[in-house]
């Protein structure tokens, strides 16, 4: 039980650190966001009326206050889910903007990640079991090669071939001319739009799992308990899956959460490329428009997602590895 309590403690602590950093960073950087916003709204480079800046500041909640008071207010607002107002989508709140984009990204990345994990683990296991076979060489060399390609470059090729040349899939957007709602037509539309971005991510996403799984599994296969299982005449399937793969899976599960972060950053470019209405595209917009509240909120959301994922994985690790539960 102590294991779970400690993991929860760590999770809360990291989350708090992330939230606090998120509060501090914009206050440390040069330039006044309020001024930027006024310039943006008025479109002028010259002098600005200070009262305008004051007004915007008050509106954004950046009034002159003690840092601690501001921090406390910030925490309170955060607890209520109030992340401020977006500059770009004024007068919509950041919460609303993100609420619109998040499901798209979660759907795209969640599905890709799980598929990548399953496929990668399976291929890695098989390659390790048949190590030094032709299949193994093909998988290993192929993975190393593809792993060095950039996802947006792959995306452009895919976009060009499958969308423009062949026209099998729509090139941009999250859905076409159907009306959103829970009906087959819309779901099919969403799926066909999501296919190309997902495919792009899927080219590189499983590679980490393949190589990781293959290498740990090869190592596990050299273990004494494997030799013992073979000497005891257990069926190959049992040795490969129940013994070697079961143990090799442990580090791979850890990398699941870490690679989620990598996948999310990869999705920024891919979503922009396909003009997919998710968090990645939003991030691009927020950055180019200096939309600080939105950027902050996206950052916070991303961190929370990755943290939560690794927290869940940690808890899961306690279940699948009995040794972790007891360790100090």
């Amino acid at each position: 039980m102590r294991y779970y309590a400690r993991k929860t403690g760590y999770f809360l602590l990291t989350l708090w650190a992330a939230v606090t950093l998120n509060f501090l960073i914009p206050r440390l950087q040069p330039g006044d966001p309020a001024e930027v916003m006024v310039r943006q709204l008025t479109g002028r480079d010259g002098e600005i009326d200070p009262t305008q800046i004051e007004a915007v500041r008050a509106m954004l909640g950046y009034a002159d206050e003690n840092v601690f008071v501001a921090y406390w207010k910030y925490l309170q607002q955060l607890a209520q889910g109030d992340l401020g107002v977006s500059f770009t989508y004024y007068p919509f709140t950041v919460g609303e903007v993100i609420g619109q984009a998040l499901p798209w990204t979660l759907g795209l990345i969640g599905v890709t990640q799980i598929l990548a994990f399953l496929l990668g683990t399976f291929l890695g296991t098989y390659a390790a079991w048949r190590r030094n076979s032709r299949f193994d060489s093909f998988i290993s060399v192929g993975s190393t090669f593809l792993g060095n390609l950039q996802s947006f470059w792959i995306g452009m090729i895919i976009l060009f071939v499958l969308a423009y040349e062949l026209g099998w899939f729509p090139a941009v957007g999250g859905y076409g001319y159907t009306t959103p709602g829970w009906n087959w037509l819309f779901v099919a539309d969403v799926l066909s739009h999501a296919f190309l971005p997902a495919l792009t991510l899927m080219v590189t996403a499983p590679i980490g799992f393949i190589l990781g799984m293959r290498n740990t599994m090869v190592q596990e296969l050299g273990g004494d308990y494997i030799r013992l299982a073979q000497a005891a005449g257990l069926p190959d399937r049992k040795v490969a899956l129940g013994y070697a793969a079961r143990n090799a899976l442990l580090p791979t599960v850890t990398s699941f959460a870490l690679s989620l972060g990598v996948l999310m950053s990869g999705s920024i470019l891919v979503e922009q490329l396909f003009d997919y209405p998710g968090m990645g595209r939003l991030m691009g917009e927020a950055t180019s428009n200096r939309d600080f509240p939105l950027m902050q909120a996206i950052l916070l959301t991303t961190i929370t997602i990755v943290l939560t994922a690794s927290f869940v994985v940690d808890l899961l690790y306690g279940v699948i590895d009995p040794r972790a539960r007891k360790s100090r």
Partner: protein
Amino acid sequence: MANERTTPVLRVEDLSVRYEPRLGTAVDAVKHASLTVSEGEFVGLVGESGSGKTTLAQAVLRLLRKPGRVANGRIWWGEDDVTDATENELRPKRWRDVATVFQSSMNSLNPVVRIEKVFTDVITAHSDSDADAAHERACELMDMVRIERSFLRMYPHELSGGMRQRVNLALALALQPKLVLFDEPTTGLDVVVQKQILDEIRRLQAELRFGAILISHDMGTILDFSDRVAIMLDGEIVEDVATDTLLTGGPQHPYSVHLLGSYGELLGEDVEGYDAAGLKAVEEREEQVAQIQEAVEVPTIVEITNLVKRFERRRGFRVEHVDAVTDVSLTLRKGEVTALVGQSGSGKSTIARIITTIESPTSGQVRYHPEGGGEPWDITRLNRKQRRVYGNAVQYVFQDPYAALNPALTVAYQLSRPLQNYRGMTKQQALDAAAELLEQVGLTPAAAYLARLPHELSGGQRQRVVIARALAPDPTLLIADEPIASLDVSIRAEILELLQSLVLRRGVGMLYITHDLLSAQMLADHAIVLQNGQVQEQGPAKEVIENPQAGYTRELLDAIPNPFQDRSVA
């Protein structure tokens, strides 16, 4: 006891195993080996590391992995020729005909499943017994190796090393195999635990009458246990005789003579035809020591009084204490060897680490008496200059010569560096001195060794280099931490002889740390027996060993088999 009429449980004929790596040349790890094990027979297989005994075992188990392959010869399990059998043909025979207990008990159980699962996996793979029957059998087996049945519900990491090896033993017997192959089953366990496991093996073997092969580099155990002994050298079985014949009639092959002789020398037994390494007998040595000590009053080098070392370990908010050393006092003098004997965890290495100032004591004092008299120094409060003097005076000989030398540097460099650092020699002087040191530790001609890298040397040669390096700063005290434990049997006596001669010739003091009372007897003047950080017994080595007072000392002594005596009594 071998019944001539029944088919032997294992027959190996003219077996050669060749490793053919993709790069590099092919190596024959086993050459034309023949071995037969009859029903209920106990065969011991001895040889040094690299002699091919484990490869032979792998081949016998049909577990050879690429790039190794059987190049020649045949293997029978009972009546079946399994040399070329496919895995599918082998599978039903495995564990029924030949079961095994592996070397490292740590990893031979699947770490993520409960112990019971391993049993049921094995049992159900070979019979159509259901889960209940398998559970029943697992419980029986646990009773057989005398472990509580409730341990079946545990994970391997929750068991001690000895327990795990018992579980492995139980597992090997799950299907009542005709032959069990023990591949160094006690390596990595404590002496006393080793003894327990071996006793268990012997008891079960006598009870169940399975054929057994025991692979070991421990001559004592092999002689003690086996009906027949096979000795391997460079992949060949050079001797294969009944144990009694080996002990009474003497071995035939020169290597066996050497192996048995150097083992016998430690026990103080003579083996015909063996040219002794020259360990001085106890009486002779005492005489010599007495002479040295008579001449001058023996100066104390290091004096330890009421030493306590307590380790703290944080667990959440609680702090746990472990007392590694409790109230130990001892004096190390010039020209004397003090043996610190105990199992792992007895605190003997902690004491060594405190003397070398790697650890600091929790309480108690360690005082160094500088040469040329003067007030003793408290080693926890040395100033820069004193620290330098003390660092010179106390040198360490490590246990594992494979890890103690930097693999990328030549012998010359590793020896001349301390000379340059500590004795301020120029490079050329240091090289000359290094050559002299090599001669002193018996590596002649020195020129042949100076330019070598550690991997070009054998284990014994490496240990000699380690000793030479320790001698380089001209120390007054050597701390030898299990200096022979990781060496092959046949060279242990030589290294002990070297250490002994250094004490006698150079008059250095020595703290000899060991788990092995036998070697302590050969080398030490004083013996201190430690258990859980407490001194169980101390006094002149001869008395402690010949007339042990503490129960623990007797336990340690019992763990040493003496086949020579057993046989002569019987």
